[in-house]
């Protein structure tokens, strides 16, 4: 089967071309850049909402994009179980559109932070972690001003295993010192109940080529490869049905 992934370009997206580059040239899967109000879900096996400052983020980050027709299309994908991934601003859009629980508030330092951090895998059955192990630590950069995760349903998320990544030390300790932005319980990424929709603040597309990575790791590729695996798995189960 040929897999086709849409990368949605909102006005103000700025990691769109980076994500396309990694999918096309590093992972080797067909990915198309689609202007937000040209997006038609039926052509795609999955979609990625990339990082950036959609509509300038002059108001709450992601809120205007959450009302884009692209999100209506994406909602159809959500319902039939196709993958929907939000990276950074994409994560902010997915929480604003209520595909994912919680909200992303201003960093506790009140400043934009660009740095490499470590995140620990807490759930390896999701759309983007199925090729990882629980407890794996990924080296990956963040770059955001509004990434402090907050939810009033923490217990529910924990019970449902919806917390996918937490900021940690290199050795996987979940401690305050490893938390770059003040996120609740060091949360860096969450998924929906069905685990086909996932959002995270760090940038896997910036951690997919050793030349860009301080420790020469390529942990971001496992993220995208898991997504491909998830799509393949869906098509197999569709056939066997």
């Amino acid at each position, binding site marked *: 089967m040929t897999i086709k992934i849409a990368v949605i370009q909102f006005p103000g997206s700025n990691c769109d071309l980076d994500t396309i580059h990694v999918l096309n040239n590093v992972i080797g899967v067909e990915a198309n850049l689609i202007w937000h109000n040209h997006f038609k879900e039926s052509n795609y096996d999955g979609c990625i909402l990339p990082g950036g*400052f959609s509509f300038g*983020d002059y108001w709450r980050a992601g809120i205007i994009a959450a009302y884009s027709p692209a999100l209506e299309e994406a909602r159809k994908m959500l319902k039939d179980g196709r993958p929907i991934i939000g990276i950074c601003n994409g994560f902010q859009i997915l929480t604003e559109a209520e595909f994912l629980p919680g909200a992303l508030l201003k960093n506790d330092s009140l400043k*934009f932070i*660009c740095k490499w951090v470590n995140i620990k895998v807490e759930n390896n059955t999701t759309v983007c972690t199925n090729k990882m192990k629980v407890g794996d630590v990924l080296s990956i950069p963040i770059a955001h001003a509004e990434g402090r995760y907050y939810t009033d349903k923490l217990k529910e998320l924990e019970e449902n295993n919806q917390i996918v990544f937490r900021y940690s030390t290199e050795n996987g300790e979940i401690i305050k010192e490893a938390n770059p932005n003040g996120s609740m319980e060091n949360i860096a990424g969450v998924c929906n109940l069905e685990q086909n929709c996932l959002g995270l603040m760090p940038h896997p597309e*910036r951690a997919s080529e050793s030349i860009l990575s301080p420790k020469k790791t390529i942990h971001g590729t496992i993220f995208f490869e898991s997504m491909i695996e998830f799509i393949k798995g869906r098509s197999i189960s569709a056939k066997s049905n």
Partner: protein
Amino acid sequence: MPRVISNGNELDVDLTEPEIKQIKNLLERDPTITEWGMFDVMHSEHCSYKSSRPKLKLFENAEENYDYVLAGPGQDAGVIDIGDGYALAFRIESHNHPSAIEPYHGAATGIGGIIRDILCMGVRPIALLDPLRFGPLKGNSHSQWLLKYVVKGIADYGNCTGIPTIGGEVEFDKSFENNCLVNVACIGLGTIEDFEHAPSKAYNPGDYIILMGGSTGRDGIHGVTFASRTLTEMSEADRPAVQIGDPFTKKMIIEATLEAIKTGYVRGLKDLGGGGLSCALSELTGDGGTGAKIDMTEIFTREPGMNSFEVMLSESQERMAFIVKPEGLEEVLEVFRKFEMAYAVIGRTDDSKVLEVYNRDKLVVSLPAIALSDAPTIPREEKRPDYLDNLIAQKTPELSIELEEIIYTLIASENICSKEWIYRQYDHEVGVRSVVKCGEGDSGVLRIIGTNKFIAASVGVNSKHCFLDPYEGAKGGLVEICGNVIANGAKPIAMVNCCNFGNPEKPESFYFFSKAVEGMGDLCKALRIPIVGGNVSLYNEDEVTNTLIKPTPVIMIVGLIDGEENIITMPFKNTGDDILLIGNTKAELGGSEYHSVIYDLEGGIPPKVDEEKIKNIWTFIRELYANKFVKANHDVNKGGFIITIAEMCFKNKMGANLDLNNCFDEDLRDDEILFSESVGRFIIETNSKDYKKIMEIAKNFNVNVKRLGVLINKPELVINGLKERVIKLDVNRMKEEFDSTLPNLMEF
């Protein structure tokens, strides 16, 4: 300031009486008030370079003398051919006055302006670098306020537009306390075809002129004339002359412009910056040898009732002017509609060589296009200030403080300490090109995706050195910034500069500009580095406190690296390796951090550049690179080589055993050895088994190389062989001092 009158309207203009006479003679009539405003702007120092142009002619013609230079000075940006079909554009510009009055929007719109300059060469902006200068932070809330909001302005604008800030430089000096310097540089990448599609001139009569982007408002009117005056107590009242930035619209302009160029129907392109529409239209038609008829009522304004004076002189941000082939008009407009960008077809070019602007059927402007874009020059006098001799004669006090204490103090000083507090706020990775990132090397290194080529870029200059000797200081700056890209493995291939100086009408201020330009011009010619562009910011004086800024000819160098394996980084890597010092250390403590931080002295003998020695060192280093001898490299800069070695130890928590016996001239004092800022030196790490071969090569190239010691697996610096005694430094403590200065000063 002379006052002109037209039809009962009065206007104060920054023109001289001879200029006013010349304009009237040229037109053979009295200009309208709008025309006076346009002349005023276009003849301002900022737009016309009327004081600086005669000196800048000293630079050799880059386009004529270097076959890989595609666009040189006088264009919106310099453009070079880097092979594989790619063109690299880059430029540096100042936004000093606006930032001194309103740091957040001043800095942000500085970024906005430099991005447009790169964009109008038809290429995608891929990196920003920001050399900044403020007064000392300690105990000065004004300097802290300026730094905080300048950095935030750069971060908010650059981050939102998706252009990584990959480098920069910060200097703190009392002379910048009120007149801070905010310089902004941008690099763009595209194919040579993209570049050829977008010249900044309208050379074909009959094309459509489209204004695209933000609306035209009453902000920023006469921003350039404001920038062409010294700062006074009245400058606060000029705050409305500072534009307001809108990075989101800029991001959309970038995408819409690049997509419009891809249609093949764009024949010319120009951004609206200083001087607004007046400047853009007169340069497009003046440089293209055409004329144009403009219908002012087509221009979309932010508020009703704007008159022709306001419309033509508004410096509202985020606007681009397109010259479009008639047959492609609809296709280009369709691109603008996709990105939901506002646009207006405001007129057409013709062969009249006259720029005519109509307000409905009333002709409000009718000027020969060339008259605006070709302002006369003014010869300026220069005189070397007498006080320089006394400054240079200043002696270093006898050494009475423990060397360890001096080194710990130096590494924590504002000019030397870590700038992480700043660059953490910049997205320096967006674009997935950043290979050597902020804080990891002397320059920022970017990959060119799809090739095995890399570019290295660095900016800066030492203004303290330039103050004592602007000719040698500017040369030293060039050597140091080239040294930065060389340290990362690159070959310097082109230069742009941003000249920040004082009031050119004062001979003692103009002297510094004049000598610095001579220095840069001479050395670039000798080293075969083309100068492909520049920007001049004069009138950087604060009349309230009667302070002239230190002369600051900021230099930006772009270098090229062939192959990933040839990228060199700064951190020391292996225990037991040799630490080699390349280049000559002289008793040059004038303008050093040591003098300034420890003794509050500005004077002394500043470093001089020996062109032949520099050439030899560069060839020697290339030879070592070719032999794969170099494991780490860092150029010696502020604070001297001991600071350089400490910085190289930090990342891998290493240390060194140094023995300085027989490494330096006998008559040098201990502090001269350790803290001299002689230019053109490098510290490199090499395997000790290669030492003999390296020394043979050094002999061949007549380069002074000294083995200072070996690396140890312990965070400790031990220095033997000084006249005084053995000194010992704790690398962990040095790192703590290095890291904590800015956070301590800025977070409270």
